């Protein structure tokens, strides 16, 4: 007779091995190694909650302290590799396979460990793509997650940094997996319940609060005149004509400049109430002046941002908040919102090739892309129309009589980055990286056929209007400045593209380069942001000069 409940029998067997450790759902922090040794088996698929911001750091240290003779060959499935311990497990032989999305600060070491044969990478996913696989073929057997607080029943309060926790727990708990949560404290009564207690098997109170990174704070003092020029070009040359009302921004200083020009430059152009009302965005401090000026109606967030808690509580009409008054973020839902319900994504990259493909994977770094590929891709399943989406679709042509829109996907880059490294290249480093690592695909962040506009200090290239691969190439060269790719332009062809409005220079839009001064920024310092928030925004110490 066949068995239909092997997963639940296996779970019961694992739980019985550690029954002696448990008092209710709680396990003492000094017993966490015994707990992990008890519930884990070699070769298990494990999600160690690594988010963009919130990190299950205590459980990460515990996992990295296990005996590789006893537990080895784990298959890690987690969105972000942020802590050294996330890679220590591979170096020590505790884990050997990895499927992930983003590895920002660990990108170099990840490339080294891969080169040394310490792990195999299944794929570099987008966030949504990895979460999707949690429910299909990469369901975790054991998940180690992170919350602000728990109660005696194991209910979890994640506070404003909910991030990945719901999607990780749901996939694991409903397939008879085991969920262990580290919490900062156990309370008799939680401010609100973010994760129901019967989805959680164990709660461990961490001896120290979890680590959290302020990733989305951009000090306005570091915004350059070139950032401001590009922001003016974007507002007047893209946001105004397409009436961009629902959007997502990347995290660079240039998109922060757009946010800080809304109450000044965009307002002077009469755009208030016409653009930028609805956002899928982390709570960027740089958005405070636009919110205070009444530009912004709603913001749904992937995660939170340190220091923004009190401000968000005081602006519940703008942000998504719970009955407790605090924000609830959710990376899976916000990624979905950014993909399907936004008309524009704008961000930066490290390399763009002649077809408009872009990548942040450069020589010796396997960085991944997180959410950018889902934000920065046309949503082919989209069926609702907006004027921005329809206009982009009309410009793209090729409808064969069937009207269809396009998402606007914009790359905003200064043509050179630090150390005079050109952004525009003939060939992406991603090709060499894929060859060396044995990837099936070069790690491309945004494919050229999804990219609709490039903004540089030289102007805007509208790739929707290009009718051949040669035209696209010249449009890209035509805004590539003094990089070798830019210097290699056919000047006649570029002037022709300019006559046809495919390339727009600042002067074509009535923007004088020297008008781009820091005077235009609604806030020019961290102190200005605090002032704009009425003292509600509390920047982390490292951003304070006072």
């Amino acid at each position, binding site marked *: 007779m066949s068995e239909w409940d092997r997963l639940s029998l296996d779970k019961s067997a694992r739980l019985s091995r550690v029954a002696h450790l448990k008092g209710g759902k709680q396990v003492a922090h000094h017993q966490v190694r015994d707990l992990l040794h008890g519930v884990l088996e070699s070769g298990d698929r494990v999600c160690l909650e690594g988010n963009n911001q919130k990190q299950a750091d205590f459980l990460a240290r515990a996992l990295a302290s296990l005996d590789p003779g006893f537990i080895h060959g784990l298959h890690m499935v987690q969105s972000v590799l942020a802590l050294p311990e996330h890679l220590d497990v591979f170096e020590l032989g505790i884990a050997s396979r990895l499927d992930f999305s983003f590895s920002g600060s660990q990108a170099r070491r990840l490339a080294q460990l891969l080169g040394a044969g310490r792990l195999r990478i299944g794929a570099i996913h987008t966030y949504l793509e990895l979460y999707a696989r949690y429910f299909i073929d990469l369901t975790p057997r054991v998940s180690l997650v992170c919350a602000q607080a728990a109660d005696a029943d194991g209910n979890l309060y994640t506070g404003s940094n909910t991030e990945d926790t719901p999607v990780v727990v749901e996939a694991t708990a409903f397939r008879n997996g085991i969920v262990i949560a580290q919490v900062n404290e156990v309370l008799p009564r939680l401010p609100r319940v973010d994760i129901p207690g019967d989805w959680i098997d164990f709660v461990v109170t961490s001896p120290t609060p979890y680590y959290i990174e302020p990733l989305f704070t951009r000090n306005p003092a570091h915004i*350059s*005149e*070139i950032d401001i*020029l590009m922001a003016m070009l974007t507002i007047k040359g893209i946001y105004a004509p397409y009436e961009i009302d629902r959007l997502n921004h990347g995290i660079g200083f240039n998109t922060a400049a757009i946010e800080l020009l809304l109450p000044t430059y965009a307002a002077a152009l009469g755009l208030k109430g016409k653009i930028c009302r609805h956002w899928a965005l982390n709570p960027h401090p740089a958005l405070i002046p636009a919110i205070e000026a009444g530009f912004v109606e709603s913001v749904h967030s992937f995660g939170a941002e340190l220091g923004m808690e009190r401000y968000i509580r005081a602006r519940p009409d703008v942000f998504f908040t719970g009955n407790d008054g605090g924000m609830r973020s959710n990376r899976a839902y916000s990624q979905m919102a950014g993909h399907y319900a936004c008309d524009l994504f704008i961000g930066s990259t490290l390399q763009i090739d002649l077809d408009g493909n872009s990548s942040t994977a450069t020589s010796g770094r396997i960085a991944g892309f997180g959410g950018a590929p889902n934000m920065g891709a046309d949503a082919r399943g989209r069926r609702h129309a907006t004027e921005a989406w329809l206009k982009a679709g009309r410009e793209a042509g090729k409808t064969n009589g069937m009207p269809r829109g396009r998402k606007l996907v914009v790359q905003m880059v*200064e*043509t*050179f*980055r*630090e*150390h*005079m490294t050109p952004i525009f290249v003939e060939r992406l480093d991603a090709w060499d990286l894929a060859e060396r690592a044995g990837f099936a695909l070069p790690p491309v962040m945004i494919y050229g056929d999804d990219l609709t506009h490039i903004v*540089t*200090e*030289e102007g805007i290239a509208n790739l929707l209007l290009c009718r051949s691969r040669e035209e696209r190439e010249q449009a890209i060269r035509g805004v590539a*400045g*003094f990089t070798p790719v830019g*210097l290699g332009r056919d000047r006649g062809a570029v002037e022709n593209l300019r006559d046809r409005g495919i390339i727009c220079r600042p002067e074509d839009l009535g923007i004088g*380069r*020297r008008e*781009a001064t820091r005077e235009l920024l609604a806030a020019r310092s961290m102190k200005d942001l605090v002032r704009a928030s009425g003292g509600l925004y509390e920047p982390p110490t490292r951003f304070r000069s006072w």
Partner: protein
Amino acid sequence: METLYYDYRGGVAPCPAKCWVLVGVLGSGNLEVLVESAPELAGSFAVEVVTSATGFGRIWQAVLDDVWTRWLLADVRVCINDCGATPSVVALRIDQALEEFTT
């Protein structure tokens, strides 16, 4: 450190508002630009670049060719102290300096 010299001919001498103008600050990723009236140049537009980044002569040439076609000046000396500014920042600072110098 590298020092580069460029010389352009065929421009028109401006009626400068000031004898000299200094724009920008010498900090990482930035540069300072000194523009001065120089009748002794006998009709040329002379640029001296002192830069912390070596090996970018071709890019400086391209940036300055571009500045030259925008301004077409004579009897003007431009001295640049560069600390690794990008070409867009360089072009912006020179334009700022020349504008202040000529108006």
